[in-house]
Protein backbone atom coordinates (compact mmCIF):
# COMPACT_ATOMS: atom_id res chain seq x y z
CA UNK A 1 0.00 0.00 0.00
CA UNK A 2 1.26 3.46 -0.78
CA UNK A 3 0.41 6.75 0.72
CA UNK A 4 1.91 8.71 -2.15
CA UNK A 5 -1.43 10.25 -2.93
CA UNK A 6 -2.18 11.01 0.70
CA UNK A 7 -1.44 14.47 1.93
CA UNK A 8 -3.68 16.72 3.93
CA UNK A 9 -7.10 15.63 2.81
CA UNK A 10 -5.83 12.14 2.14
CA UNK A 11 -4.75 11.88 5.76
CA UNK A 12 -8.19 13.11 6.80
CA UNK A 13 -9.90 10.37 4.81
CA UNK A 14 -7.53 7.67 6.05
CA UNK A 15 -8.27 8.62 9.65
CA UNK A 16 -11.98 9.01 8.96
CA UNK A 17 -12.15 5.52 7.49
CA UNK A 18 -10.55 4.07 10.60
CA UNK A 19 -12.94 5.98 12.85
CA UNK A 20 -15.90 4.72 10.91
CA UNK A 21 -14.66 1.15 11.14
CA UNK A 22 -14.04 1.63 14.85
CA UNK A 23 -17.58 2.84 15.45
CA UNK A 24 -19.05 -0.05 13.51
CA UNK A 25 -16.94 -2.49 15.54
CA UNK A 26 -17.82 -1.01 18.93
CA UNK A 27 -20.74 -3.02 20.33
CA UNK A 28 -21.78 -0.37 22.87
CA UNK A 29 -22.04 2.32 20.22
CA UNK A 30 -23.88 0.02 17.84
CA UNK A 31 -26.30 -0.92 20.63
CA UNK A 32 -26.88 2.73 21.50
CA UNK A 33 -27.50 3.54 17.86
CA UNK A 34 -30.02 0.73 17.57
CA UNK A 35 -31.76 1.90 20.75
CA UNK A 36 -31.87 5.43 19.34
CA UNK A 37 -33.38 4.22 16.08
CA UNK A 38 -35.93 2.01 17.78
CA UNK A 39 -36.90 4.78 20.19
CA UNK A 40 -37.48 7.28 17.42
CA UNK A 41 -39.52 4.83 15.36
CA UNK A 42 -41.44 3.75 18.48
CA UNK A 43 -42.29 7.36 19.31
CA UNK A 44 -43.54 7.79 15.76
CA UNK A 45 -45.56 4.58 15.84
CA UNK A 46 -46.96 4.92 19.32
CA UNK A 47 -47.64 8.64 19.41
CA UNK A 48 -50.38 10.55 17.70
CA UNK A 49 -47.96 12.52 15.53
CA UNK A 50 -47.48 10.07 12.70
CA UNK A 51 -51.24 9.65 12.46
CA UNK A 52 -51.60 13.37 12.00
CA UNK A 53 -48.98 13.84 9.32
CA UNK A 54 -45.35 14.89 8.99
CA UNK A 55 -45.53 18.15 10.89
CA UNK A 56 -47.26 16.67 13.93
CA UNK A 57 -44.63 13.92 13.89
CA UNK A 58 -41.90 16.53 13.86
CA UNK A 59 -43.46 18.19 16.90
CA UNK A 60 -43.68 14.80 18.61
CA UNK A 61 -40.06 14.01 17.89
CA UNK A 62 -38.43 17.33 18.78
CA UNK A 63 -38.14 16.70 22.53
CA UNK A 64 -36.80 13.18 21.98
CA UNK A 65 -34.29 14.37 19.44
CA UNK A 66 -33.21 17.18 21.74
CA UNK A 67 -32.53 14.69 24.52
CA UNK A 68 -31.27 11.64 22.64
CA UNK A 69 -29.18 13.12 19.84
CA UNK A 70 -26.76 14.85 22.24
CA UNK A 71 -26.50 11.61 24.18
CA UNK A 72 -25.66 9.69 21.02
CA UNK A 73 -23.21 12.32 19.78
CA UNK A 74 -21.42 12.48 23.10
CA UNK A 75 -21.25 8.69 23.35
CA UNK A 76 -19.65 8.54 19.93
CA UNK A 77 -17.11 11.28 20.42
CA UNK A 78 -16.28 12.07 24.03
CA UNK A 79 -13.33 9.67 24.23
CA UNK A 80 -12.19 9.61 20.61
CA UNK A 81 -9.04 11.72 20.95
CA UNK A 82 -8.45 10.82 24.58
CA UNK A 83 -8.29 7.10 23.77
CA UNK A 84 -5.70 7.65 21.07
CA UNK A 85 -3.68 9.79 23.46
CA UNK A 86 -3.87 7.21 26.23
CA UNK A 87 -2.80 4.41 23.92
CA UNK A 88 0.13 6.42 22.59
CA UNK A 89 -1.25 6.39 19.06
CA UNK A 90 -1.35 10.17 18.94
CA UNK A 91 2.39 10.24 19.51
CA UNK A 92 2.96 7.68 16.80
CA UNK A 93 0.69 9.49 14.36
CA UNK A 94 2.80 12.58 14.90
CA UNK A 95 5.87 10.67 13.75
CA UNK A 96 4.00 10.04 10.50
CA UNK A 97 3.68 13.77 10.06
CA UNK A 98 -0.09 13.81 10.47
CA UNK A 99 -1.15 17.37 11.24
CA UNK A 100 -3.50 18.32 14.03
CA UNK A 101 -6.21 19.64 11.66
CA UNK A 102 -5.98 16.47 9.56
CA UNK A 103 -6.25 14.27 12.63
CA UNK A 104 -9.15 16.16 14.20
CA UNK A 105 -10.83 16.54 10.82
CA UNK A 106 -10.53 12.82 10.20
CA UNK A 107 -11.92 11.86 13.59
CA UNK A 108 -14.77 14.31 13.18
CA UNK A 109 -15.53 13.20 9.65
CA UNK A 110 -15.51 9.51 10.50
CA UNK A 111 -17.56 9.74 13.66
CA UNK A 112 -19.76 12.42 12.12
CA UNK A 113 -20.60 10.15 9.19
CA UNK A 114 -21.61 7.41 11.58
CA UNK A 115 -23.75 9.88 13.47
CA UNK A 116 -25.36 11.19 10.30
CA UNK A 117 -26.14 7.66 9.21
CA UNK A 118 -27.79 6.78 12.52
CA UNK A 119 -29.70 10.04 13.04
CA UNK A 120 -30.80 10.55 9.47
CA UNK A 121 -31.60 6.89 8.95
CA UNK A 122 -33.60 6.65 12.14
CA UNK A 123 -35.58 9.77 11.38
CA UNK A 124 -36.29 8.65 7.84
CA UNK A 125 -37.56 5.36 9.24
CA UNK A 126 -39.78 7.32 11.63
CA UNK A 127 -41.01 9.48 8.77
CA UNK A 128 -41.83 6.39 6.78
CA UNK A 129 -44.49 5.55 9.35
CA UNK A 130 -46.58 8.57 8.34
CA UNK A 131 -47.97 7.20 5.07
CA UNK A 132 -48.66 3.93 6.85
CA UNK A 133 -50.30 5.28 9.97
CA UNK A 134 -51.98 8.51 8.89
CA UNK A 135 -55.68 8.35 8.04
CA UNK A 136 -56.92 9.55 4.66
CA UNK A 137 -58.29 12.74 6.21
CA UNK A 138 -55.86 15.06 7.94
CA UNK A 139 -56.27 15.78 11.63
CA UNK A 140 -56.73 19.26 13.01
CA UNK A 141 -52.97 19.67 13.25
CA UNK A 142 -52.45 19.12 9.55
CA UNK A 143 -54.64 21.86 8.26
CA UNK A 144 -52.64 22.59 5.19
CA UNK A 145 -51.53 19.80 2.91
CA UNK A 146 -48.87 21.99 1.38
CA UNK A 147 -47.35 22.70 4.82
CA UNK A 148 -47.56 19.09 5.91
CA UNK A 149 -45.32 17.43 3.41
CA UNK A 150 -42.42 15.02 3.48
CA UNK A 151 -40.26 18.03 2.64
CA UNK A 152 -40.97 19.52 6.04
CA UNK A 153 -39.94 16.27 7.67
CA UNK A 154 -36.85 16.08 5.49
CA UNK A 155 -35.89 19.60 6.57
CA UNK A 156 -36.38 18.54 10.17
CA UNK A 157 -34.16 15.51 9.63
CA UNK A 158 -31.43 17.61 8.05
CA UNK A 159 -31.60 20.06 10.94
CA UNK A 160 -31.36 17.15 13.39
CA UNK A 161 -28.21 16.05 11.60
CA UNK A 162 -26.76 19.55 11.85
CA UNK A 163 -27.66 19.60 15.53
CA UNK A 164 -26.00 16.22 16.02
CA UNK A 165 -22.84 17.39 14.26
CA UNK A 166 -22.68 20.48 16.46
CA UNK A 167 -22.90 18.43 19.64
CA UNK A 168 -20.40 15.93 18.21
CA UNK A 169 -17.92 18.75 17.62
CA UNK A 170 -18.31 19.87 21.21
CA UNK A 171 -17.86 16.30 22.44
CA UNK A 172 -14.74 16.00 20.31
CA UNK A 173 -13.38 19.18 21.86
CA UNK A 174 -14.06 17.66 25.29
CA UNK A 175 -12.22 14.54 24.22
CA UNK A 176 -9.22 16.53 23.04
CA UNK A 177 -9.10 18.85 26.03
CA UNK A 178 -9.67 16.27 28.77
CA UNK A 179 -6.62 14.68 30.33
CA UNK A 180 -8.38 11.75 31.95
CA UNK A 181 -11.43 9.64 31.23
CA UNK A 182 -13.03 10.92 34.42
CA UNK A 183 -12.48 14.49 33.33
CA UNK A 184 -13.96 13.70 29.91
CA UNK A 185 -17.06 12.13 31.44
CA UNK A 186 -17.54 15.03 33.82
CA UNK A 187 -17.18 17.58 31.04
CA UNK A 188 -19.45 15.64 28.70
CA UNK A 189 -22.18 15.21 31.30
CA UNK A 190 -21.89 18.86 32.28
CA UNK A 191 -22.26 19.95 28.68
CA UNK A 192 -25.22 17.63 28.13
CA UNK A 193 -27.02 19.04 31.15
CA UNK A 194 -26.16 22.57 30.12
CA UNK A 195 -27.40 22.06 26.57
CA UNK A 196 -30.56 20.13 27.36
CA UNK A 197 -31.80 22.14 30.32
CA UNK A 198 -29.19 24.59 31.55
CA UNK A 199 -29.25 27.24 28.86
CA UNK A 200 -33.03 27.21 28.62
CA UNK A 201 -33.34 27.46 32.38
CA UNK A 202 -30.87 30.32 32.44
CA UNK A 203 -32.81 32.12 29.71
CA UNK A 204 -36.08 31.69 31.58
CA UNK A 205 -34.45 32.88 34.78
CA UNK A 206 -33.01 35.83 32.93
CA UNK A 207 -36.41 36.77 31.56
CA UNK A 208 -38.09 36.31 34.91
CA UNK A 209 -35.60 38.52 36.64
CA UNK A 210 -35.69 40.96 33.74
CA UNK A 211 -31.96 40.58 33.28
CA UNK A 212 -32.80 39.58 29.72
CA UNK A 213 -35.21 41.58 27.64
CA UNK A 214 -37.69 39.92 25.31
CA UNK A 215 -35.56 41.09 22.41
CA UNK A 216 -32.73 38.94 23.66
CA UNK A 217 -34.74 35.72 23.45
CA UNK A 218 -33.70 34.82 19.87
CA UNK A 219 -30.07 35.31 20.80
CA UNK A 220 -30.48 33.33 24.00
CA UNK A 221 -32.04 30.48 22.04
CA UNK A 222 -29.20 30.55 19.55
CA UNK A 223 -26.58 30.29 22.26
CA UNK A 224 -27.16 26.61 22.99
CA UNK A 225 -27.24 23.90 20.32
CA UNK A 226 -30.58 22.69 21.67
CA UNK A 227 -32.14 26.13 21.57
CA UNK A 228 -30.77 26.78 18.12
CA UNK A 229 -32.06 23.45 16.84
CA UNK A 230 -35.51 24.14 18.26
CA UNK A 231 -35.54 27.58 16.70
CA UNK A 232 -34.58 26.18 13.33
CA UNK A 233 -37.19 23.43 13.48
CA UNK A 234 -39.95 25.86 14.36
CA UNK A 235 -38.79 28.50 11.93
CA UNK A 236 -37.61 26.46 8.96
CA UNK A 237 -39.03 22.94 9.13
CA UNK A 238 -42.58 23.44 10.37
CA UNK A 239 -42.64 27.17 9.68
CA UNK A 240 -44.68 28.20 12.68
CA UNK A 241 -42.90 31.50 12.73
CA UNK A 242 -42.05 31.18 16.39
CA UNK A 243 -38.94 30.28 18.28
CA UNK A 244 -36.57 33.05 17.38
CA UNK A 245 -34.39 33.90 14.45
CA UNK A 246 -33.43 31.00 12.16
CA UNK A 247 -30.44 32.96 10.95
CA UNK A 248 -29.14 33.49 14.47
CA UNK A 249 -29.87 29.86 15.28
CA UNK A 250 -28.00 28.60 12.23
CA UNK A 251 -25.10 30.88 13.07
CA UNK A 252 -25.21 29.50 16.59
CA UNK A 253 -24.95 25.88 15.47
CA UNK A 254 -22.23 26.61 12.93
CA UNK A 255 -20.43 28.67 15.56
CA UNK A 256 -20.43 25.73 17.96
CA UNK A 257 -18.96 23.50 15.25
CA UNK A 258 -16.23 25.98 14.32
CA UNK A 259 -15.25 26.92 17.86
CA UNK A 260 -15.38 23.34 19.13
CA UNK A 261 -13.24 22.00 16.29
CA UNK A 262 -10.77 24.83 16.80
CA UNK A 263 -10.50 23.88 20.47
CA UNK A 264 -10.03 20.24 19.50
CA UNK A 265 -7.26 21.11 17.04
CA UNK A 266 -5.47 23.31 19.57
CA UNK A 267 -5.62 20.77 22.37
CA UNK A 268 -5.29 17.49 20.46
CA UNK A 269 -1.54 17.20 20.87
CA UNK A 270 -1.51 18.09 24.52
CA UNK A 271 0.52 15.38 26.19
CA UNK A 272 -0.75 13.10 28.94
CA UNK A 273 0.89 13.73 32.26
Amino acid sequence: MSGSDLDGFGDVFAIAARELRTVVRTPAVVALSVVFGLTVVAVAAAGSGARGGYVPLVLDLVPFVEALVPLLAVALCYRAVLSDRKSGELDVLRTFDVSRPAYVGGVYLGRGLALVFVVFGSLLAAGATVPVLSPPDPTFLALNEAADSPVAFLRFSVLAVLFALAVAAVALAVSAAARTARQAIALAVGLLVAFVVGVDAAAVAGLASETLGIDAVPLALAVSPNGAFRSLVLGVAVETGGGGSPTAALAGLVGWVVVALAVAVLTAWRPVE
Partner: protein
Amino acid sequence: MTDEPTTMPNPEPATTAETDSDESTGEAAVPASNGPAIAATDLSHAFGDVRVLDGVSLSVAPGEIVALVGPNGSGKSTLLRFLARVRAPDEGTVAVGSESGRARVGYLPQQPGFRAGFTAADTLEFYAQFVDEDVDVAGVLERVGLADAADRRVDALSGGMTRLLGLGRALVGDPAVVVLDEPASGLDPGMVERLFGIVSALADAGVAVVLSSHNLGPVERTADRVVVLDGGRFVADGDPRAVVESVGATDLQTAFGDLVATEEVTGR
Protein backbone atom coordinates in the same frame (compact mmCIF):
# COMPACT_ATOMS: atom_id res chain seq x y z
CA MET B 1 25.97 22.23 36.37
CA THR B 2 28.05 20.43 33.83
CA ASP B 3 26.84 17.44 31.98
CA GLU B 4 30.26 16.22 30.97
CA PRO B 5 30.05 12.45 31.02
CA THR B 6 32.64 10.02 32.14
CA THR B 7 34.86 10.24 29.09
CA MET B 8 35.41 7.13 27.10
CA PRO B 9 36.78 6.61 23.64
CA ASN B 10 33.87 7.09 21.29
CA PRO B 11 34.50 4.73 18.44
CA GLU B 12 33.34 5.33 14.96
CA PRO B 13 30.05 3.65 14.15
CA ALA B 14 30.43 0.26 12.60
CA THR B 15 29.09 1.20 9.23
CA THR B 16 30.06 4.85 8.99
CA ALA B 17 33.76 5.06 9.57
CA GLU B 18 34.07 8.52 8.05
CA THR B 19 31.25 10.12 9.94
CA ASP B 20 32.25 12.73 12.44
CA SER B 21 29.18 12.96 14.57
CA ASP B 22 30.37 16.06 16.42
CA GLU B 23 30.57 18.37 13.42
CA SER B 24 26.86 18.69 12.81
CA THR B 25 25.64 18.98 16.35
CA GLY B 26 25.13 22.68 16.56
CA GLU B 27 22.10 24.72 15.78
CA ALA B 28 18.71 23.58 14.61
CA ALA B 29 19.95 23.53 11.05
CA VAL B 30 19.40 20.26 9.28
CA PRO B 31 22.57 18.22 9.31
CA ALA B 32 24.43 17.56 6.10
CA SER B 33 23.55 14.38 4.27
CA ASN B 34 26.83 12.73 5.29
CA GLY B 35 26.46 13.91 8.87
CA PRO B 36 24.57 12.34 11.71
CA ALA B 37 21.20 10.80 11.06
CA ILE B 38 19.85 12.63 14.07
CA ALA B 39 21.37 15.26 16.32
CA ALA B 40 19.98 16.55 19.58
CA THR B 41 21.65 19.61 21.02
CA ASP B 42 21.52 20.99 24.56
CA LEU B 43 18.21 19.44 25.48
CA SER B 44 16.80 20.52 28.81
CA HIS B 45 13.40 19.83 30.23
CA ALA B 46 11.56 19.97 33.51
CA PHE B 47 8.25 18.63 34.74
CA GLY B 48 7.29 21.24 37.27
CA ASP B 49 10.18 21.50 39.69
CA VAL B 50 11.75 18.25 38.58
CA ARG B 51 14.46 18.71 35.98
CA VAL B 52 14.55 15.52 33.91
CA LEU B 53 17.07 16.58 31.28
CA ASP B 54 19.85 19.02 31.81
CA GLY B 55 21.55 20.18 28.65
CA VAL B 56 22.25 16.84 27.00
CA SER B 57 23.43 16.49 23.43
CA LEU B 58 23.40 13.33 21.37
CA SER B 59 24.40 12.69 17.81
CA VAL B 60 23.75 9.37 16.10
CA ALA B 61 25.27 8.35 12.79
CA PRO B 62 23.56 6.29 10.10
CA GLY B 63 23.96 2.63 10.91
CA GLU B 64 24.86 3.30 14.53
CA ILE B 65 23.12 1.65 17.46
CA VAL B 66 23.05 3.84 20.55
CA ALA B 67 21.67 2.36 23.74
CA LEU B 68 20.41 4.64 26.48
CA VAL B 69 20.64 3.01 29.86
CA GLY B 70 19.80 4.45 33.21
CA PRO B 71 17.69 3.93 36.29
CA ASN B 72 13.96 4.40 36.21
CA GLY B 73 13.07 8.06 36.10
CA SER B 74 16.43 9.08 34.72
CA GLY B 75 14.90 10.78 31.69
CA LYS B 76 15.38 8.09 29.04
CA SER B 77 11.80 8.04 27.81
CA THR B 78 11.62 11.81 27.83
CA LEU B 79 14.80 12.04 25.75
CA LEU B 80 13.49 9.42 23.32
CA ARG B 81 10.23 11.30 22.90
CA PHE B 82 12.20 14.41 22.04
CA LEU B 83 14.27 12.45 19.53
CA ALA B 84 11.07 11.08 18.00
CA ARG B 85 9.79 14.65 17.89
CA VAL B 86 6.53 13.84 19.57
CA ARG B 87 7.25 16.35 22.28
CA ALA B 88 9.30 19.52 22.35
CA PRO B 89 11.89 20.13 25.05
CA ASP B 90 11.92 23.30 27.10
CA GLU B 91 15.30 24.06 25.58
CA GLY B 92 17.44 22.62 22.82
CA THR B 93 16.92 21.33 19.32
CA VAL B 94 16.56 18.06 17.48
CA ALA B 95 17.52 17.85 13.83
CA VAL B 96 16.94 14.82 11.64
CA GLY B 97 19.22 14.15 8.71
CA SER B 98 16.67 14.07 5.95
CA GLU B 99 13.93 16.58 6.38
CA SER B 100 12.74 16.40 2.79
CA GLY B 101 9.28 15.10 2.01
CA ARG B 102 7.65 13.28 4.88
CA ALA B 103 10.84 11.81 6.32
CA ARG B 104 10.20 10.72 9.84
CA VAL B 105 11.63 9.06 12.89
CA GLY B 106 10.22 5.60 13.57
CA TYR B 107 9.09 5.43 17.16
CA LEU B 108 8.20 2.61 19.51
CA PRO B 109 6.65 4.03 22.69
CA GLN B 110 7.36 2.41 26.02
CA GLN B 111 3.83 1.04 26.14
CA PRO B 112 2.66 0.69 22.55
CA GLY B 113 -1.10 0.74 22.15
CA PHE B 114 -3.35 0.03 19.21
CA ARG B 115 -6.93 0.55 18.20
CA ALA B 116 -8.85 -2.49 19.45
CA GLY B 117 -10.81 -4.59 16.99
CA PHE B 118 -8.32 -4.34 14.16
CA THR B 119 -5.92 -7.04 13.07
CA ALA B 120 -2.16 -6.66 13.10
CA ALA B 121 -2.18 -6.35 9.30
CA ASP B 122 -5.05 -3.79 9.39
CA THR B 123 -3.06 -1.74 11.86
CA LEU B 124 0.07 -1.57 9.75
CA GLU B 125 -1.96 -0.92 6.61
CA PHE B 126 -3.52 2.06 8.33
CA TYR B 127 -0.13 3.58 9.12
CA ALA B 128 1.20 2.67 5.68
CA GLN B 129 -1.20 5.22 4.23
CA PHE B 130 0.83 8.05 5.76
CA VAL B 131 4.15 7.29 4.11
CA ASP B 132 5.14 8.02 0.57
CA GLU B 133 6.70 4.67 -0.19
CA ASP B 134 4.93 1.46 -1.04
CA VAL B 135 4.79 -0.61 2.11
CA ASP B 136 4.90 -4.39 2.07
CA VAL B 137 2.86 -4.95 5.21
CA ALA B 138 3.32 -8.71 5.08
CA GLY B 139 7.06 -8.12 4.77
CA VAL B 140 7.11 -5.85 7.80
CA LEU B 141 5.21 -8.43 9.85
CA GLU B 142 7.62 -11.11 8.68
CA ARG B 143 10.54 -8.89 9.64
CA VAL B 144 9.35 -8.61 13.24
CA GLY B 145 8.28 -12.22 13.50
CA LEU B 146 4.53 -11.67 13.36
CA ALA B 147 3.75 -13.15 9.96
CA ASP B 148 1.61 -15.83 11.58
CA ALA B 149 -0.29 -13.23 13.59
CA ALA B 150 -1.19 -11.00 10.65
CA ASP B 151 -4.90 -11.73 10.95
CA ARG B 152 -5.01 -11.77 14.71
CA ARG B 153 -6.75 -8.89 16.43
CA VAL B 154 -4.37 -6.57 18.24
CA ASP B 155 -6.30 -6.94 21.47
CA ALA B 156 -5.66 -10.70 21.30
CA LEU B 157 -1.89 -10.33 21.03
CA SER B 158 0.38 -11.10 23.97
CA GLY B 159 2.37 -8.29 25.58
CA GLY B 160 5.50 -9.32 23.73
CA MET B 161 3.72 -9.59 20.41
CA THR B 162 2.15 -6.19 20.97
CA ARG B 163 5.63 -4.77 21.41
CA LEU B 164 6.81 -6.47 18.24
CA LEU B 165 3.85 -5.00 16.38
CA GLY B 166 4.87 -1.62 17.78
CA LEU B 167 8.32 -2.24 16.36
CA GLY B 168 6.75 -3.12 13.02
CA ARG B 169 4.76 0.10 13.10
CA ALA B 170 7.96 2.03 13.77
CA LEU B 171 9.52 0.43 10.70
CA VAL B 172 6.67 1.32 8.33
CA GLY B 173 8.10 3.44 5.55
CA ASP B 174 11.70 2.44 6.30
CA PRO B 175 12.65 5.50 8.34
CA ALA B 176 16.33 6.43 8.49
CA VAL B 177 16.14 6.82 12.25
CA VAL B 178 14.34 4.52 14.68
CA VAL B 179 13.77 5.33 18.33
CA LEU B 180 12.79 2.39 20.52
CA ASP B 181 11.71 2.87 24.11
CA GLU B 182 12.28 -0.36 26.04
CA PRO B 183 11.77 -2.61 23.01
CA ALA B 184 12.74 -5.74 24.93
CA SER B 185 10.43 -5.14 27.87
CA GLY B 186 8.10 -8.08 28.41
CA LEU B 187 9.82 -10.31 25.89
CA ASP B 188 11.13 -13.78 26.72
CA PRO B 189 14.88 -14.36 26.32
CA GLY B 190 14.48 -15.84 22.86
CA MET B 191 12.38 -12.90 21.73
CA VAL B 192 14.92 -10.50 23.22
CA GLU B 193 17.66 -12.05 21.13
CA ARG B 194 15.44 -11.92 18.08
CA LEU B 195 14.63 -8.29 18.72
CA PHE B 196 18.26 -7.30 19.05
CA GLY B 197 18.90 -9.28 15.88
CA ILE B 198 16.33 -7.10 14.12
CA VAL B 199 18.03 -4.03 15.53
CA SER B 200 21.40 -5.22 14.23
CA ALA B 201 19.90 -5.85 10.81
CA LEU B 202 18.44 -2.36 10.79
CA ALA B 203 21.84 -0.89 11.59
CA ASP B 204 23.45 -3.02 8.89
CA ALA B 205 20.97 -1.46 6.48
CA GLY B 206 22.13 2.01 7.51
CA VAL B 207 19.35 2.86 9.93
CA ALA B 208 20.34 4.87 13.00
CA VAL B 209 18.87 3.20 16.06
CA VAL B 210 18.46 4.76 19.48
CA LEU B 211 17.00 2.50 22.10
CA SER B 212 16.59 2.29 25.82
CA SER B 213 16.81 -1.00 27.63
CA HIS B 214 17.37 -2.64 30.97
CA ASN B 215 18.55 -5.81 29.19
CA LEU B 216 22.20 -4.92 29.47
CA GLY B 217 23.58 -8.23 28.21
CA PRO B 218 22.15 -7.86 24.69
CA VAL B 219 22.91 -4.14 24.82
CA GLU B 220 26.57 -4.83 25.52
CA ARG B 221 26.74 -7.28 22.63
CA THR B 222 24.74 -5.23 20.12
CA ALA B 223 25.16 -1.50 20.72
CA ASP B 224 27.90 0.55 19.13
CA ARG B 225 27.57 3.10 21.91
CA VAL B 226 26.16 3.06 25.37
CA VAL B 227 25.01 6.28 26.94
CA VAL B 228 24.37 6.13 30.67
CA LEU B 229 21.76 8.65 31.70
CA ASP B 230 21.19 9.50 35.31
CA GLY B 231 19.47 12.48 36.83
CA GLY B 232 19.00 14.07 33.42
CA ARG B 233 22.70 14.00 32.52
CA PHE B 234 24.96 11.68 30.60
CA VAL B 235 27.35 10.10 33.08
CA ALA B 236 29.01 7.88 30.50
CA ASP B 237 29.05 7.73 26.72
CA GLY B 238 31.09 5.39 24.62
CA ASP B 239 31.77 1.94 23.28
CA PRO B 240 30.29 -0.63 25.67
CA ARG B 241 33.71 -2.19 26.35
CA ALA B 242 35.23 1.19 27.03
CA VAL B 243 32.43 2.07 29.44
CA VAL B 244 32.94 -1.23 31.25
CA GLU B 245 36.71 -0.78 31.43
CA SER B 246 36.48 2.83 32.54
CA VAL B 247 35.13 1.76 35.91
CA GLY B 248 37.11 -1.44 36.11
CA ALA B 249 34.01 -3.59 35.80
CA THR B 250 33.65 -6.97 34.18
CA ASP B 251 30.43 -6.33 32.33
CA LEU B 252 27.99 -3.58 31.53
CA GLN B 253 25.60 -4.59 34.30
CA THR B 254 28.30 -4.09 36.91
CA ALA B 255 29.60 -0.95 35.26
CA PHE B 256 26.11 0.51 35.20
CA GLY B 257 25.73 -0.10 38.91
CA ASP B 258 29.09 1.50 39.60
CA LEU B 259 28.42 4.53 37.41
CA VAL B 260 25.03 5.26 38.86
CA ALA B 261 26.23 4.63 42.42
CA THR B 262 29.22 6.91 41.87
CA GLU B 263 26.99 9.68 40.68
CA GLU B 264 24.75 9.28 43.69
CA VAL B 265 27.73 9.36 46.08
CA THR B 266 29.04 12.58 44.56
CA GLY B 267 25.79 14.20 45.52
CA ARG B 268 25.11 15.43 42.04
